[in-house]
């Protein structure tokens, strides 16, 4: 039993490692195509690329991307740049601010819509009209609404997570089995007791799911908002305005390796925050993982 479990775990790690290695090798080979495409034996390939309407100087798309080895070399130098870490901090800070605000406002609001018919009747139509508006469409309005650029970015990030969290909370609370309410009422529960001991725990799994999805959207939004707004307060100099601004700045400065460094950094940052959230989610819903 224990043996089976560890060997399964090993094979998961192995597959993961192999998939990453294969990905890196393909990327390296693809981006080095600017060298090997000139070789005589690849004349057919140059013809194919020309026929497809591209310039036969490298493989389309991937040939324009710097190789992983080059990216790694640049990353090593960037690691010593305090501006890079400042960008990490800025983006994380904004994501957390927007996300926490979305939780603090969104969870009670969603629960209110779920338990009160009146609140639902009044609140939901407006909510449903605002919900389809992409968070990025809020950027200009947000800049007008809020006194500082930092608050504008935080507000847009907040919107990214808010709608997803609310819709999940409402859906989760409404899908609680009616027999739980009947059983609770039969055993003498008050309204408050039903809320704290049936509705809230019954909605928790949906809150966790909604938060995880909302967290993903928050990262998408913060990066785009940083690019549009020019990185906000510029505390850390040219590269300290958040990871989104870091990418934009690298693009403007012509450092393609740094663009990729920024992209992968966001990938890692998003992964870390999702994992943290998932671990927290498992802690608050222990009954879901024990079967």
């Amino acid at each position: 039993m224990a043996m089976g479990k560890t060997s399964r775990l090993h094979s998961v790690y192995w597959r993961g490692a192999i998939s990453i290695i294969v990905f890196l090798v393909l990327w390296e080979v693809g981006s080095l195509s600017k060298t090997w495409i000139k070789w005589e034996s690849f004349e057919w390939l140059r013809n194919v690329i020309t026929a497809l309407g591209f310039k036969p100087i490298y493989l389309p798309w991937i040939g324009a991307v710097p190789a992983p080895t080059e990216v790694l070399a640049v990353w090593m130098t960037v690691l010593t740049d305090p501006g890079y870490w400042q960008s990490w901090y800025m983006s994380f800070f904004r994501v957390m601010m927007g996300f926490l605000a979305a939780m603090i406002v969104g969870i009670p609001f969603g629960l209110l819509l779920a338990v009160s018919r009146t609140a639902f009747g009044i609140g939901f139509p407006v909510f449903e009209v605002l919900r389809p508006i992409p968070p990025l469409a809020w950027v200009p309005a947000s800049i007008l609404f809020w006194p500082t650029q930092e608050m504008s970015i935080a507000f847009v990030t907040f919107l990214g997570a808010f709608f997803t969290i609310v819709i999940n909370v409402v859906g989760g609370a409404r899908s609680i089995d009616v027999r739980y309410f009947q059983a609770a009422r039969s055993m003498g529960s008050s309204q408050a007791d039903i809320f704290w001991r049936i509705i809230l725990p019954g909605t928790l799994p949906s809150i966790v799911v909604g938060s995880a999805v909302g967290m993903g959207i928050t990262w998408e939004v913060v990066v785009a908002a940083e690019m549009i707004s020019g990185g906000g307060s510029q505390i850390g100099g040219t590269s300290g305005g958040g990871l989104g601004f870091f990418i934009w700045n690298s693009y403007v400065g012509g450092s393609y390796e740094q663009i990729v460094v920024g992209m992968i950094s966001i990938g890692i940052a998003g992964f870390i925050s999702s994992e943290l959230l998932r671990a927290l989610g498992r802690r608050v819903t222990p009954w879901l993982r024990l079967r």
Partner: protein
Amino acid sequence: MTQANTLRTAIKAGELKAVDVSKGYGASHFRKEVVSACSFTIERGKLTVMIGPSGCGKSTLIRLLAGFEKPTTGTITLDGEPVTGPARDRLVLFQESALFPWMTTWDNILYGPRARGELTPETRDLAEFLLGKVGLQDFRHKYPTQLSGGMQRRAELARAMINNPRIMILDEPFRGLDAMTKELMWEYYSALYEENRRTNFFVTTDIDEAIFLADRLLIMSNIPTRVRAVFEVDVPRPRRLVSMIENDRANEIKMQALSLLHEEAMKSFSRGSKAAADFVDAYSKRMSKG
């Protein structure tokens, strides 16, 4: 066994009366009567089993008795007091488990006392005693998903009993369990009943289950439902599976009940009920064999 004694002296077996109860859904000519002028008594301290063709309105009747819904006409009284809403003196065990998935067995059992602010050392002792009664001492910290189907039903029995209801209403509680577990649960449940003699109202579609458990057997008509016949199942307790199979009296009642159920199923079959078709089919096969 002081707890056992306190539990036994504390038992208040109630008597529930339904008089001319009707219930329908929908408006004007789309209206469908589900229960029609239905009268019966669930006698004090007895195990009354209700059986009827599937889709005959038994579940609606249960919702009325529990107080989740109000009858259109007629009255339901428990010990003379009219039923106005759900209350701890009429507890329902639903088909399939309604244990709260986010609570351990222990917290599920203590739900009622905690909700009413009665979490005293005595209720904890009682919970401990009931946990032992249903054989789940080693599973007190487990969540419902970690329990087997039979354990879930036993945990739910304990969760209901701790509230000391005047009547326990069970809506096909052993449906979905495999045949062997089901038969074990019959013995288990009837032993529990024989020990404390609460008023129990048990609804089922399984004739063997009905005969095994019942003191009184109510046979329900086709929809709109009313009581078609009442049998006193005068087979002595304690009952065990082996002895019940060979008991002539039990088999005699079973045959009479089956032929009545067959009549009712034929009626709904002629009206196009698919559920009834299975029963009519099974009945004719059984009769041709016997």
